[in-house]
């Protein structure tokens, strides 16, 4: 029945665009709506107008999870698109599906389109590259967590907004002062697992999972219950208990609290920029994500969130040529620079970043380069290259549950993370079994 449903779904979307001339059609499924959806449509129109051999047809397939599901269901029904957008969490799932996807480096080589994988910044490229150094999917939109500061809230609580917030030690002192100064919501966060465990681990150069965070094999185990993570979660639990850290939900619910001016500090993706800039009626600022001086003498790099484009198998050779041309177009410096400036996502090629700097964008929009610097300051290590874990969406769900137990005071950080490890490891073993 699932197969039947999938084929109906796939057929209904494939049947819509009818092309009269002999253009080769390339289907591109993505997860963007609103302003981001418009920008993707613009890129596609620009590509279609630039040549006459291929026509890219873009369709929106729901949120990240739904888009991945639509792609999987379509593949099972043999109606898969040529290009599928998959969020970073689904990377291991796609990599394990050897018969369902075609590695990007291979498609690009065959199509003859110009493509230089080394144009991408290391932390982005590493996430989507095999251990042999081959690029498997094309990085599309990437962001990294930063600290957002509501300067007006600091002033209102009588705290100096220019104070050093580079370490969690200092942030802890700021939270005390803010609370004492009458601030009801000193700190709020979005994407708690991504920021306070996954990025936390990379930033302090401690492993989140064994086998190089899963890059070196499917037989990986979670290591999120180490002393560094526990120390951080213990501090966060104390802050939650004292009303200095306010928990608002598993996704980015906290964004509404921050944008309305209710909260002083907010740990959120750098891609939150567009929304905060549009809505915030207060003086705000971007700072690098804090680190614990007691754990690391200086921070390593943070890792990315976002999505990449996967090429799916089962299509004709000339269609793959079109795919190659389109991906080559997307990775060109102009397209990348425009995307970075319009969305707040990271410039994922070195050239796009330099072009943006040369155009004076960072001077006009201070703070937009904090994320770039934070990610590229150091050469990524095995702990900060990224994460490659099977069933990661579910594992994040487990981590969310266990973190909620910490915030509610039901479990100690050690108990909660030990439990997250054993539950997550069980899923990793199943994934290994299914894909081994």
């Amino acid at each position, binding site marked *: 029945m699932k197969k039947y449903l999938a084929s109906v779904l796939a057929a209904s979307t494939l049947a819509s665009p009818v092309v009269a001339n002999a253009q080769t059609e390339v289907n591109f499924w993505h997860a963007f709506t609103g302003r981001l959806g418009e920008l993707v449509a613009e890129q596609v129109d620009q590509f279609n107008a630039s040549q006459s051999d291929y026509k890219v047809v873009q369709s929106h397939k729901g949120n990240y*999870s739904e888009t991945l599901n639509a792609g999987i269901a379509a593949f*099972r029904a043999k109606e898969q698109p040529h290009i599928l957008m998959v969020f970073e969490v689904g990377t291991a799932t796609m990599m394990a599906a050897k018969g369902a996807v075609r590695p990007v480096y291979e498609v690009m080589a065959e199509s003859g389109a110009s493509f230089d994988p080394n144009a991408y910044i290391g932390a982005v490229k590493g996430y989507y590259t095999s251990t042999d150094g081959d690029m498997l999917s094309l990085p599309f939109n990437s962001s990294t967590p930063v600290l957002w500061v509501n300067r007006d809230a600091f002033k209102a609580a009588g705290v100096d907004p220019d104070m050093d917030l580079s370490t969690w030690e200092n942030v802890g002192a700021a939270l005390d002062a803010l609370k004492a100064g009458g601030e009801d919501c000193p700190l709020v966060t979005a994407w708690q697992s991504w920021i306070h465990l996954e990025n936390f681990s990379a930033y302090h150069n401690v492993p989140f999972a064994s086998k190089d965070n899963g890059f070196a094999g499917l037989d990986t185990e979670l290591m999120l219950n180490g002393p560094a993570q526990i120390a951080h979660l213990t501090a966060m639990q104390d802050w939650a208990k004292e009303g200095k850290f306010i*928990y608002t939900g598993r996704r980015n619910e906290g964004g*509404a609290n921050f944008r309305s001016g*209710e909260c002083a500090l907010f740990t959120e993706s750098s891609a939150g920029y567009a929304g905060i800039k549009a809505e915030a009626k207060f003086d705000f600022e971007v700072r690098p994500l804090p680190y614990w001086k007691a754990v690391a003498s200086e921070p390593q790099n943070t890792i990315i969130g976002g999505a990449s484009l996967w090429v799916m198998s089962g299509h004709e050779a000339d269609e793959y040529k079109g795919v190659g041309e389109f991906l080559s177009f997307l990775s060109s410096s102009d397209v990348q620079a425009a995307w970075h400036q319009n969305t707040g996502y990271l410039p994922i090629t070195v050239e796009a970043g330099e072009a943006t700097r040369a155009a004076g964008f960072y001077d006009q929009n201070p703070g937009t380069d904090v994320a770039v610097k934070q990610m590229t300051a150091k050469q990524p290590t095995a702990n900060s290259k990224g994460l490659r874990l099977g*069933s990661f969406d*579910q594992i994040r769900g487990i981590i969310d*549950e266990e973190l909620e137990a910490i915030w509610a005071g039901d479990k100690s950080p050690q108990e909660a993370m030990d439990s997250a490890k054993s539950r997550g490891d069980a*899923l990793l073993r199943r994934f290994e*079994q299914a894909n081994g």
Partner: protein
Amino acid sequence: MEKRVTFKGWLLPLFLIAPQVLISAVFFFYPAGQAVWQSLFIPDPFGLSAQFVGLGNFEFLLGDPYYRASFATTAVFSLLVTLCSMVPALFLAVIADRLIKGSGVYRTLLIWPYAVAPAVAGVLWMFMFNTRVGVVSWYLGQLGYDWNHVLNDNEAMGLVVVASAWGRVSYNFLFFFAALQSVPRSVIEAAAIDGAHFWRRFFGIVLPLITPTAFFLLVVNVVYAFFETFGVIHTITAGGPQQATTILVYKVFADGFVGQDLGSSAAQSVILLLVVGLLTVIQFKYVEKRVHY
């Protein structure tokens, strides 16, 4: 006592039940059979390969304390949803039944919530109780109560129960109302002449006479709570906080369509099927004995 129609041949009866058999086969037996078959494998998401694991998926599930805890959560949730949707419905039906004028308006208004899809109802309630901008949570705050279903288990459970039961009250009201209308007036009048007051008449005569409807609604509402409340849970709590509102059917969805673990998801749907089947059998075997037709 039993009324039974007997047919002479077997062609006509076979022809008459054929549509139902066909529909059951296509929409129930085939997919259910597929689920049973799939539950014996661990497939990869893309269907490229599948490993036969026998009852391995069931072992994995039943060995997981969080899955076992989900049974208790489901039991509490279903009981509360059934109670919260049937008792107010019966009360409203009794009140509407007593109205002499304008009962049509009340009836129509009371049926409206049934037209709201579960997911939409979920969003509606989520906004009312939103910890930041919710009207109700703001009002509770004014009264000095700090509503936070994002972290508080019981509040989260209460919220999804009310949101699930709300639309169901309409459905139940409709059936109770029709049942009340069919209670013979002469019996009630006779009791009234004998001096029985309203609630005495209600518990002594009316309630026993509408037990067939109540029983039907009990079965239907339990099935509803087990299977159709997924939209509400998904939009309001997504199973949280921790696993406070992760009911069995929500886990089937989460593991299958978010986690891409189709083997486990299929095994869970088989278990769910058995649980609901068993519950229905129990209801028919024990509860139905107290039903007067």
